[in-house]
């Protein structure tokens, strides 16, 4: 065991820090044109698509450099490296791995340059956790697929220009072979026959939507991978999720702001920190976050050594899901009634923030695969228990 970084890694960390010192003002001093400038600069540094091969315009960074970059950025609460979130997270890696040369030149630069938003269409009204049962269908007609059906909970659909989606091209109605017959398509959302209806979530945001497809014609050129290969394409791009290092740094930052909050709060007429239950809950959060950090490093070590991971990332996902709910509920508990206020009437900066966050957990807890599904994954793939 050693937790040292190599000279080259230290040099890279220094480079990142220097860049952030020079180009990232504190949050409250970021002006109106800050974001545009930031995006240009990080693009010029080739940090956008940092792990992507240089041939497609990425940074060609290795796994440790990625960790360092994420860690340093999270420490400074840096904004994301691009605004095309879905493109950078899932769609781009899918195209790089399965796309044709034509698709790569057509889509990758725009993703890297934050030209427009992508969204990902997996879920349907009757298809959630059991994704392979999807029914939205596409029939080949000459050199076009014709899509009929619907997708739902599609994040960013109200603002996106393109969708990377899964459709059924074969094995209709068969549950035994449901994983086959799925195809991935890249679809222009301005195509005729598409209707997008935003859905308001409980926190008041209108970020996801239901999309209806009525005889939408998509050129065969826009198929990602072979026909029927959609399941493999999806698994591969989901597996792109690397370490949870940046995430952990953000969780530590959240823990710090909770501690600040507690310092200034009263509980039963006494400083909240004097309440042993409060102290214990904070310490339990710390143990879980530290466990996430160290689990991440242990799995990272295995990746560096070239040992394939099974589904170990589900371990941290489950911690993250718990923490997401528990930490914001904790803040509300400590704040008592004032924690429920959405506005800033009570003149404490934090107030309002915690109320909003306490309604935001489904993003993480449901959006990334529910805890029950994560437990199934661990039980079945790691422990080898029978499927249910």
């Amino acid at each position, binding site marked *: 065991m050693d937790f040292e970084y190599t000279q080259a890694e230290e040099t890279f960390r220094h480079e990142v820090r220097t860049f952030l010192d020079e180009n990232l003002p504190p949050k409250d001093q970021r002006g109106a044109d800050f974001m545009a400038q930031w995006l240009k600069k990080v693009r010029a540094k080739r940090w956008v698509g940092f792990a992507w091969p240089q041939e497609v315009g990425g940074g060609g960074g290795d796994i440790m450099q990625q960790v360092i970059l994420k860690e340093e950025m999270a420490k400074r609460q840096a904004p994301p490296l691009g605004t095309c979130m879905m493109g950078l997270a899932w769609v781009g890696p899918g195209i790089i791995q399965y796309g044709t040369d034509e698709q790569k030149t057509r889509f990758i630069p725009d993703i890297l340059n934050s030209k427009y938003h992508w969204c990902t269409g997996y879920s349907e009204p009757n298809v959630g956790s059991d994704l392979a049962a999807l029914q939205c269908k596409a029939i080949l007609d000459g050199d076009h697929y014709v899509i009929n059906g619907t997708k739902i909970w599609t994040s960013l659909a109200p603002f996106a220009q393109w969708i990377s989606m899964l459709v059924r091209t074969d094995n209709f109605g068969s549950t035994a072979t449901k994983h086959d017959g799925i195809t991935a398509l890249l679809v222009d959302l301005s195509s005729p026959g598409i209707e997008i209806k935003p859905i308001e979530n409980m926190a008041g945001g209108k970020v996801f939507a239901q999309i209806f497809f009525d005889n939408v014609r998509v050129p065969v050129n826009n198929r990602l991978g072979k026909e029927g290969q959609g399941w493999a394409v999806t698994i591969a791009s989901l597996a792109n999720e690397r370490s949870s290092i940046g995430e952990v740094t953000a969780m530590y930052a959240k823990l710090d702001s909770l501690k600040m909050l507690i310092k200034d709060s009263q509980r039963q007429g006494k400083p909240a920190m004097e309440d042993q239950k409060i102290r214990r809950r904070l310490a339990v959060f710390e143990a879980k976050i530290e466990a996430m950090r160290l689990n991440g490093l242990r799995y990272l070590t295995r990746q*560096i050594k070239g040992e394939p991971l099974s589904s170990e990332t589900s371990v941290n996902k489950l911690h993250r899901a718990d923490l997401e709910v528990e930490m914001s509920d904790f803040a509300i508990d400590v704040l008592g009634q004032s924690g429920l206020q959405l506005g800033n009437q009570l003149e404490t900066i934090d107030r309002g923030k915690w109320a909003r966050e306490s309604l935001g957990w489904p993003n993480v807890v449901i959006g990334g695969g529910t805890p029950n599904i994560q*437990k199934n994954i661990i039980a079945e793939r790691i422990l080898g228990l029978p499927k249910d």
Partner: protein
Amino acid sequence: MNFGFTEEQELLRDQVRKFLDAQSPVSRVREIMHTDEGFDRQIWQQIAALGWLGLVVDPEYDGVGLGFVDLIVILEEMGKSLFPSPFIAHSLAASTLNELASDDQKKRHLNDLASGRKIGTIALLDIHDLPNAESITLSGVIHEDGVVLNGKKLFVMDADNADLFIVAFKDQHETYLALIHRDQTGVSTQGSATMDLTKRTGSLELDNVSVATQDLLLTDDENINRLLDKAAVAVTAEMIGAAEAVIYMTTHYAKDRIQFDNPIGKYQGVKHRLAEMYVDVESFRSLLYYAAWCVDESPHELPRSASLAKAYASDAFSQIGTDGVQLHGAIGFTQEYDMQLYLKRSKWARPIFGDADYHYERISQLQVTD
């Protein structure tokens, strides 16, 4: 950056595994734990020959000169097999002398421990709820030629089997460790059974015991707390192995046992609980490995990292022990079935060197003073 074990450490793990499977399978553990001494001196001598008893002792005192991370590799496997022996107590005693004793003291005591001629243990605590230096009450007045000690140490691991006791006491200002031999006049021990027969503890009674200056070691609270942290780390390492064994046994049982026409492992009440156990063991495993690394490589981080590991493990493993039995149904409740032995270990491990409440509170105190 490498948060994994070296090839040598993996080889050591293999060696330990093979040795324990051959010499001390659970069937043998059951025999040993019912003997008076509670451990097998023949196996102990074999372990000595393998070098494990002096693992963390410098080579010049007959040791192997390895570190705490190597030690926990052995402990994890011992925990898996519920191996009954004074290994933890002995290793902590040896490690303490190796770190703190004078050359003369090492020559007189450490060689004996490293080679297995004598068994060592630590006798620090007087009030079991507070495993820290600040709550040591045994006191003695230092004279020109040593000290005379009167009092009782509680919860001394392997008290009845140890030859050498490292005893903490305070005089007016300072904290000391006294190296006391079982043969000295006025020394007696009183072993007591706990629910886990593979773990022996007892009390050490000191009735006008004179300790010569050459067997005194002036130290400080920080060193005592470091020793207690190392103890917590050692115990937690065994908890990993034992908890892993529970998951292994229960998973196998869940695949085989049929109810309502299906293996019970198909039901989420069973499989999800097993997945949660896995998450917890993975997590306190990571916390513990890091704490073990801190012992030698980053001592200032040890208090926090040891407390995080022991706190998490204490709560998690105790629930794992209980649920391991519960998920087996009635067979888990029988003497004959091994699961009960692991349940008892989980109960034993929970309060030893600080339970979850103690360590979580300590973590929050560390935060305040940060």
